[in-house]
């Protein structure tokens, strides 16, 4: 071995010396821990861009508590283990609040780190279990699936008199959590599940899945997949000429799906927590600003992040301090209206578990546009 031994050790030392250390500045640090590469990159980019837009506005208006806000992006690579490391890094770097991530599987792992350090985390995740784990520092920015599914199933059962449904879902934390809530709700209303088809994250070919759904002869098809898979799924549905109506929850009618799948999305109906096309002046104004700056249409993740940024501003200003513990205490049981803070585009309440409550929408995609059919009141 001889000098063979020295080389790697020297390199090891040289490289490790460069590891970043905690540093503190007099700006207010907010960490954006989000999916910027891997399967979640499309939704993560929406989130990051909207967050950047919001904090630029906040900084231009004088920042929070007289301090400028410094937002740092941490890429989770859509990987739970990496996301955990990134939350740790964000906290080491001195973040007061963590924004993100969106993928439920990542949030489940990294929320423990934020909890251990007493740092509030505003997540975009929608799987039901997130707020059931007794973590006093986690807050949603949109509905958990256990809240949105009952609204959708009520619509299917009462307005459309659907008797049987074929379900397609993605086999990860997000998909399985949503599928379990949806199917549970169907059973309560005695609606039959004619087919129950799971697919993989990143799956490219949906031919076999669609054949199963098609031959199930259900009254309606319900799909709960991530955005890119939703686009591929809908294209295959149209290719095979499936005639049953297709329903979804939030992701299926997402702007990204419309961009990717084009005409195949037309006619798809479902429930969304947030929509850039909602008949609410604040949201439409935000959508305009966003599109002017980034040259693409924002999806619900962008609206979530934008509102999340203003939640941070409102709560810290209300508290008169950036203290993380005070932040978490105040946000539990808080209701913020657009009159209190215009950046909160719709009146929103948080309960003692960090669950969100606000109006939501039934939408249909027409000519590549999400069209709001009706507004559903707060639960």
């Amino acid at each position, binding site marked *: 071995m001889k000098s063979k*031994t020295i080389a*790697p050790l020297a390199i090891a030392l040289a490289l*490790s010396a460069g590891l970043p250390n905690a540093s503190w500045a007099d700006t207010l640090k907010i960490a954006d821990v989000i999916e910027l590469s891997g399967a979640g990159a499309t939704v993560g980019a929406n989130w990051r861009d909207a967050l950047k837009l919001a904090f630029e506005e906040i900084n231009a208006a004088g920042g929070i508590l007289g301090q400028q806000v410094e937002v740092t992006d941490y890429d989770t690579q859509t990987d739970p283990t990496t996301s955990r490391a990134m939350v740790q890094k964000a906290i080491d770097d001195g973040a007061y609040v963590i924004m993100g991530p969106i993928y439920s*599987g990542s949030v489940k*792992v990294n929320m423990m780190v934020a909890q251990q350090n007493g740092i509030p985390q505003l997540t975009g995740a929608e799987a039901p279990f997130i707020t059931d784990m007794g973590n006093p520092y986690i807050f949603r920015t949109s509905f958990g699936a256990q809240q949105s599914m009952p609204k959708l199933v009520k619509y299917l059962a009462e307005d459309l008199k659907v008797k049987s449904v074929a379900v397609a879902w993605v086999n990860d934390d997000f998909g399985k959590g949503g599928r379990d809530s949806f199917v549970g709700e169907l059973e309560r209303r005695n609606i039959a599940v004619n087919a129950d088809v799971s697919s993989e994250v990143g799956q490219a070919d949906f031919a076999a899945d669609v054949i199963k759904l098609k031959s199930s002869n259900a009254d309606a098809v319900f799909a709960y997949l991530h955005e890119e898979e939703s686009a591929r799924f809908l294209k295959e549905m149209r290719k095979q000429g499936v005639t049953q109506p297709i329903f979804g929850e939030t992701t299926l009618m997402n702007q990204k799906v419309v961009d990717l799948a084009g005409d195949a999305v037309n006619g798809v109906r479902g429930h969304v927590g947030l929509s850039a096309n909602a008949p609410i002046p604040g949201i439409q104004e935000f959508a305009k600003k966003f599109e002017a700056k980034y040259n693409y249409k924002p999806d619900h993740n962008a609206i979530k992040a934008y509102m999340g940024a203003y939640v941070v501003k409102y709560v810290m200003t209300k508290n008169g301090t950036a203290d993380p513990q005070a932040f978490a205490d105040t946000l539990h049981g808080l209701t913020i209206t657009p009159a209190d803070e215009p950046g909160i585009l719709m009146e929103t309440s948080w309960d003692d578990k960090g669950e969100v409550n606000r109006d939501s929408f039934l939408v249909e995609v027409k000519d590549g546009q999400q069209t709001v059919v009706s507004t559903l009141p707060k639960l």
Partner: protein
Amino acid sequence: MSTRTSFSLVAGLAILILLPFTQSNYGVFVLSSWMVYSIAAMGLNLTLGYAGQVSLAQASFMGIGAYTTALMTMAGIPWPLAMLAAMVLCFVIGLLLGYPALRVQHHFLAFVTLAFNALVVLVLRNEEWLTGGTYGVVGIPRPEILGLPTQKPLAFYFFVLALFMLTAAALYGIIRSPWGRAFRALRENPIRANSLGVDIRKTTLLAFAIGSACGGLAGGLVAQLTQFIDPNSFGLTISLKVLLMVIVGGAGFFFGPILGALLIVLAPEFLRFTEGYYLMLYAALVIVLMVFCPSGLLGLVERARTALKLRQNPNATTWEAGR
């Protein structure tokens, strides 16, 4: 071992002991995961670097080890027993898989091991009663050693460091033993090794099984490090990542996988300033390295050293200079 070698080893150990004190929790986490992946990569190096067989199943052994350790410790079984069971299980599965699989070699073996990895991920996901399915296992306890908890990042770092040193020492011993020499003879020239009385089949199988047991140990440590495991943490991409560590560092060099793991784990850190481009840069770096130096970074060092010696002593043969 020369004085110089012993000195650099002691210096290296001193660095590893002192370094975490200068780091934030995140830095300690990164260093711990570097050592964990080094253990997995050293195991694979035995199969790939010394016995010359491409295996794409290292992540599946990490998975088996991780779930065994997690489920057993969460059921109240002491961690030394759980981790030992994980290693033994991986060793046995390595033997069972290797026995039929090692009838085929090179890219055929790569395919067989690839299929095995996919199979393990599916079993982990579908056997919900045991593994928790897609949701994985959360809240895996970190070990307690003689009453000392390792819940804090720094304490757990030293636990990992101790196991890392033990594994490295054990593997160093194996490579220097008659078995290890047989592994290398096999890689250099299987026919000649066979004619000298080395049982090709048995030796390769043993290398594969020991490498798998290392994977099991690394998996157990991953479970305790992140305190969360799910089937996707042990997919094919992780197998490829471990394979990349071995190849980038230098397959067949003892310190190759350790250096490779360091680069692969730390590269995102150093390339982060490039923001959205770092994955592209990272990929480009790997391609450049593989084109110009297929024997990895330590291969590059060795080549430079040989060239230097040849210049100093033009009458020596390449073989003599390379010694």
